[in-house]
């Protein structure tokens, strides 16, 4: 967690609460945490907030650069979930569930802003751009930077949706099942296909 204790009283209260909640829920399954939250357990909410808001934010910022919009969407989403406590349905992977509803919320907000009924659930073309980090010590070649540059170039020629899947798979370490949930595919198979095709295109692009 990057949140350092701040001078204000409020933030120290929050971080104290949050570190307590981590101890309680660390070992529990997502379903147990979610059920506790559903029953009104504030510690469970603190734990969810602490664990997932950083991921949600970095997911959102890859769709839109508008920080205030992301903030509003995340805020409304949590307010809404809290209001529905007591009647929430089961959630197996909290992370993919939250990313899914955040993406929906963002699309809705973006659509509203552009007052335009045609563009709806498409990712913007520059969403989920990928950076290839240089900490890879495995390929100890002189041409390492060259390879990384080529890889980066190829990755960013993929479609936004393919890049999104790769970021979720490789950066977030999500399973295909979770990716399918975030991308709202009915079948896990579709998420696999999306990734297979992305890797296939990548191979073609790197060959040329």
């Amino acid at each position: 967690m990057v949140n350092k204790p701040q001078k204000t009283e409020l933030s120290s209260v929050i971080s104290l609460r949050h570190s307590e909640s981590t101890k309680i829920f660390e070992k529990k399954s997502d379903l147990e945490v979610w059920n506790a939250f559903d029953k009104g357990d504030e510690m469970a909410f603190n734990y969810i907030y602490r664990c997932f808001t950083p991921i949600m934010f970095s997911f959102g910022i890859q769709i839109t650069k508008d920080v205030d919009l992301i903030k509003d969407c995340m805020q409304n989403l949590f307010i809404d979930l809290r209001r529905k406590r007591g009647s929430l349905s089961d959630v197996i992977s909290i992370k993919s569930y939250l990313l899914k509803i955040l993406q929906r919320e963002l699309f809705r907000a973006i659509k509203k802003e552009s007052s335009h009924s045609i563009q709806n659930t498409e990712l913007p073309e520059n969403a989920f751009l990928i950076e290839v980090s240089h900490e890879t010590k495995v390929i100890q070649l002189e041409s390492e930077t060259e390879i990384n540059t080529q890889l980066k170039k190829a990755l960013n020629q993929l479609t936004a949706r393919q890049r999104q899947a790769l970021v979720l798979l490789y950066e977030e370490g999500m399973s295909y099942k979770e990716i399918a949930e975030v991308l709202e595919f009915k079948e896990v198979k579709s998420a696999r296909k999306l990734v297979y095709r992305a890797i296939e295109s990548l191979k073609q692009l790197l060959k040329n």
Partner: protein
Amino acid sequence: MKFKDYDIEHFLTDEFFIQWVKNPNENNQHFWEKWISEHPEKRRVVQQAASIIRSIQSDQNTGISDALYVDMFENIIKAEEKKEPVKFKPDESNPWISIFSIRKIAAAVVLGFCIWISYDVMIKGVKIQTEIPQTLIVSRSNPAGKKSIISLSEGTKIHLNGESKIAYPEVFEKGLRTVELEGEAYFEVAKDGRPFIVSVGDNAINVLGTSFNVRQNGAGGLAVALVEGKVKVNDRLGNQVLLNPNEMLVIEETGKFYKSDFDLMEIIGWKDMYLIFNSDSFEEAKSKIENWYGVEIEVKGKISETWVYSGQYKEESLENVLRGISLTSGLKYSIKGRKVIITKP
């Protein structure tokens, strides 16, 4: 496929492998370490795959700021209290309450401002309204048997076929031109630097300045035929296909797709009023005529499965087309208003 037959792309898409690279735990670590020592010849490819997986990260590394994290948490909790004022014990010394009432005052100020602005806009405001135009969506549709040509404000020309519908904003927004199509249309897109996107069902056709034909087939099928320029087609699964002139992309209802060449006249002749039959089966010819003239065809008798017909008609009447077909294939026809009866003697 066994792990020993894996190439780099298989490792890159294998969940169990990725989990080991990203979140090594006792189980996967134990397995992969043992496996690599069993297959030393795979060490290099495993390392390469792992290195790619580790090196991929999002371009955006702006994390959530402490200020945002704390502020959002506060807003979420407070939203709850607004809903449940009963739990609220009035206590002067509680700093949260004073913040709350400051918010109330702020809200009242904002509301007042809004009323003032909207009063201002309504009374004096015609000028302001014209400055912020509401994007109106224009929708045009043709019944079977009717064709039309639509010219858009930026110079693009759209030939809309029968039983088709197109929707577009009256004025395109900055940076993007998007139209929505159902059915069939031929586009002559004017170049103006902005991409032009045709969205058809779950697919999007992305172009700069080109001429191409789009036809929806059944529920999920689609055929895009490119005459000139370059076209990019994206389907909802994230596939992307680039088309060159004289190439046609066919997406079947099952999602399967392939490229083929096409007969220019057959595919786009309709926009110049050419009705083309190209070794068509009876069913194909029947639906072409129904669609072209907006009629319903009833068949009496059994028509051979090997029946084919080729022919070209320009701006011909229904009567002439039917006569032409019956001459070469020995069918009889009669026209009763919107209904045609074809008999196999």
